[in-house]
Every structure is written in C-alpha cells, then in structure tokens.
C-alpha cells in the first residue's frame, strides 16, 4: 500500500515538473539577454521587464482589447442564460433537458468549425452580423454557453429558487422584486464562477479571433503569436510570462470560487 502511494507521488511529481519546467525556463529567459551555450546571459537582467511595463503600449493595448472582447460576450451570455434558466426552473422544468442539449452544442462545434461556419453565413452580407466585432461577440457568447449553463443551473437548484420565490410571493413580493432582491444576489457566486471560467476560455482563444478578426484585431494571443515568430526571444518571454500570470490568476480565482460553492452545497445537503 505504501509502495503504491510512493508510485503515485512519483507520477505526480514528474507531471508537475514536466508542466512547470517550460514556464520556469521561459521565466529565466525573460530575465536574460539571450542564451549563452546552456546558460542565460547577463542573468538576472530586468531590461525587458522594464520595457514590458514602461515601454510596451502595444502589448497592454492588446491585453485590454482581449479583456474587452471577453467581457462583452460574457455579459451577453450571462444575461440571456440567467433569464432562460430562471424561466426553466420556475415555470418549465421539463425543458431543462432541451436547454442542456442546446447549451452543449458548442462543445461539439469547436472553434475553427464554428468560426468558418459563421463567416460563410454572415461575412459580406451587409447585415449587422457582418460586422466582425459583432460576429466575434456573437461567436464568443455561444462558445461559452456550456460553462454559463452549468454554473447557473447548479446555482439555481442549490439555492432552491422555486421555493424561495414561492415563499416571497406568499409574503407579498412581486416576481421582479424577488428576482432582483433575492434570486440574483444569491446567484452571485455562480455567476462569478461561470464568468471566470468563460473568461479563461476566451482570453486564451487564438483560432476564432484569428479567423474572424483576421488582421483587424490583435489580441494578447495573436500578439504573442506574432512576437514568437518575429520578436526577440527574451522579450517575447516576458510577454508570455505576463499573459501566463493573468490566466493563472483567473484560473486560481475560478478554482477557489468553485471550491467555495461546492463546499457550501455540501454543507447545505448535510
């Protein structure tokens, strides 16, 4: 038994090393001026970190554009799904299965297929959806549906929304008052989990923005791609580490929130 545990630790340790080593070396590379045989030269050098923070407006512009491109679709998707899920839980529970199926479709239509299909349908048609930004918002809103659906649904059932609304109604509250003053405040954690998971997915997107936005849009990911192809190694490394840190922070926040929600749910079912 003890031997088995040692084996598990070895497998786990090797996996962690394999995953951390590239990040670690990229970080070291960022603090140098290049590789000298197998060692980084002028280590530690802060030249490119200073440049990143004080003289890289393009990078930060692209990061901000990425954030903007993520936030709007997340808001659209959340608003739509909150209303849909509320209606389903309150009035049409039988349609839950259908909504679940619809929400899972983006899992099967991964990025490239979805982007090409949308381009074929709407590009150059002169409608509002032909606008590349609108197109990108729409595609992003759809692609995060599985995360949004799952997060909101679990939350609504966990807070026992139907009975809470009934209790409020018997005490004289209107449906709208109950929705905004009781249901939404109790869904904030679920909404935050869904938003963070979606943000993590959209922030790291490369194929969709490249296909739909083309050269019009440079986001953090496309910027990194271009830098990796034409930029100077140590400088590019600082960009990569910075983007990694942003994504890592989001992932940690969503993990912690999700953990908190699961703990609360477990306490409720005790």
């Amino acid at each position, binding site marked *: 038994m003890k031997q088995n545990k040692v084996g598990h630790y070895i497998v786990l340790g090797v996996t962690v090393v394999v995953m951390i080593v590239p990040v670690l070396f990229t970080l070291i590379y960022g603090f140098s001026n290049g590789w000298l045989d197998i060692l980084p030269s002028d280590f530690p050098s802060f030249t490119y970190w200073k440049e990143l923070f004080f003289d890289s407006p393009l990078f930060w512009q692209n990061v901000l554009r990425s954030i903007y491109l993520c936030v709007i679709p997340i808001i659209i998707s959340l608003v739509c799904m909150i209303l849909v899920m509320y209606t389903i839980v309150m009035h049409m529970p039988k349609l839950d299965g259908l909504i679940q199926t619809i929400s899972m479709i983006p899992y099967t239509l991964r990025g490239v297929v979805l982007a090409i299909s949308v381009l074929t349908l709407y590009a150059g048609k002169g409608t509002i959806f032909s606008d590349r930004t609108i197109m990108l918002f729409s595609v992003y809103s759809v692609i995060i549906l599985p995360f949004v659906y799952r997060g909101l649904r679990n939350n609504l059932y966990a*807070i026992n929304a139907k009975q*809470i609304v009934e*209790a409020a*109604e*018997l*005490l*004289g*509250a209107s449906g709208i008052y109950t929705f905004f003053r009781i249901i939404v405040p109790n869904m904030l954690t679920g909404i935050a989990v869904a938003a963070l998971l979606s943000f993590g997915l959209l922030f790291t997107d490369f194929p969709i923005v490249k296909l739909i936005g083309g050269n019009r849009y440079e986001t953090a990911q496309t910027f990194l791609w271009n830098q990796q192809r034409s930029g100077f190694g140590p400088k590019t490394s600082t960009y990569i580490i910075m983007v990694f840190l942003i994504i890592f922070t989001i992932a940690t926040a969503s993990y912690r929130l999700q953990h908190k929600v699961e703990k*609360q749910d477990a306490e409720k079912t005790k």
Partner: protein
Amino acid sequence: MAYIHFEHINKYFGTNHVLKDITLDIEQGELVTFLGPSGCGKSTLLRCLSGLEEVTSGKIFLDGKDVTEVSPRKRGCGMVFQQYSLFPNMTVAQNVAFGLKMQKMPKAQIETKVREMLDVVGLSEKYDQYPRSLSGGQQQRVALARALVVEPKVLLLDEPLSAIDALLRKNLQIEIRRIQRDLGITTLFVTHDQDEAMVMSDKIHLFNMGTIEQSASPVDMYTKPASKYAASFIGHYNILQADAFNKAAGTEYSSGCLAFRPEIIGISRTEPEEEAIVIKGTVRNQIPHGNIVRYTIDANGVELDADILFEASSIFEIGEQVYVSIKDGNILELE
C-alpha cells in the same frame, strides 16, 4: 359557512387526477392535519389554498370570501415549507421583516414586531445572524416567525419537520402547537407521520389517492378507523379476514375485515381466566421498541402482533407456547 371551505375541488396534473372532488370544512382557530402517504394529494390541496397551484375545478372560500381566483400575494396565507426556504442573503431579522416590508409598514413598527415574533419562537439572540449559521430547527423557527409575523388568515405548514432529526422534531411539534394555541391561528398541517398528526391536531383528515378517507379527532381516528386503509395507516392494527380469524379463534364474525390494535392483546403462559377470546399460539418474533416489546405470534394459523410493556422479568422467548387473549369489544369490524 366554515372559515375555510373547499367545494368540489378537482386537480389534474396532465392526465393524473390528483384531487378528486374534495369538499371539506375547517373551522377558525383549529389545527387541522392532512395525513397520508406521498402522492396522495395532501400537499397539493394545501398549495391550492395558498394559490401556488390552481384548481382544475371547484371553489375555495377563506373567511367567507371566494379566493379561488385570487393571487397568492393577496390571499393572506402564511406558509412554512419543508426546506425552510429562508432568503440566504438576508439576516434572521430581515427574513422575518420581509413580509412586513412588502406591506409597507413603518420601519419602527417592523422592528418592534420582528423582535416580538423572534421572542415568541425563542430566537431573539439570533437577530443579526444569517440562516447558514443556524441549525435546521432554528431555521424552521425563523421560517415560522416569518410566516406568522404578517398575521396571516391561515398558517400552512407543508411537512415542516420532515428534514429535522427525531428529538428536535418532537420538541418543535410541541412548540408549534403551543404557538398556534397562544395565537389562536387557524393552521393546516401536512404530514405523512401519523404520530406527528396525533400529537399536534385538533382534527385529522386522512388522504387516500386524492380523496379523504376519514376525518376525525386524533382519538377517534386511532380507536375507530373507518376502513381497512385507515386502520393500516393509523397505529399498527392487526387486520385479518373474518373467515381466517373465525377459524383460528372459533368465533363467528360476519364476513369482511377485522381489526384490533396490538396493545389490546394479552399474552400469558397459562390459560387466562378472564372473559376474552383466547387462542393458543407460538412466539415467532420479539422486537423491543423502547418501553414495549412487539411480539409476532402464530396463533392457530393467523399471525398477530402484540405490544406488551417491557418488563425484563416477563419476556417471552421465540418458540415459546403462549395464550393470546383479546377482549371481544376491542375488535373492529371493517367494511
């Protein structure tokens, strides 16, 4: 007209006929229990009164007014649910104050009423706490306070104690009954637990598949079940076919069902001299139930359950030959 009057209530869920032509009166100030197994329609009737379910046909009168089409917000029903349904983002005081706030009562008055009501349910010290920091029993008392503070015309309790552990449940049964008596509020209580119904009710309505099988006081319900179904649901009646019992005991009951409670059966090692129906039998099983021991006895081919006070000195062993005695007047003949 009674304070609450259900008139020929029918309710369908799709093709499922859940309430079948129910007509029922409830008097003001009574605590009435709807008792029955899951799916018999008791909660649905309660929800129809609250307005959370619409009736398919029939009329509901509350305090002399037809409320069949009135929205739940305006019916004046206070309700406590099985799962408490407290608002998690609000403190105990805010939960209790919610209904008063909806009535646009002045703040100072709300605070006074909330404090009074929390005193009534014994939770004054939890005023500023959130529901998640309370035990199940405390949460249910907050839910009760929230329902009562608005002074509803009728208090509806939909299996409010089902999710609470046994000891606390017994205390809450007594607590709810005390509060109901003190406030004199008409209360409808839904439960599937016959002991709970016995402890709490002025009157019990026993439900069976969308109809009311029997309506009676707890004592009458227990001692005079009107049907085989009532006898099997209330207490732990021995229910036998008259033919089989006649054959075993040498009696001459007319055909149909006979029912008698296990606690009216006597067991002895020697033939009893008292005037009773006596059958010789063998102890097949013996289960201690707190202050009684339940024996299963094979009495001349029929199986009888007998509850005897637990006395260590007079325990009958499995396989022992015994005499079973039943007083004739204690046997009920059912249709």
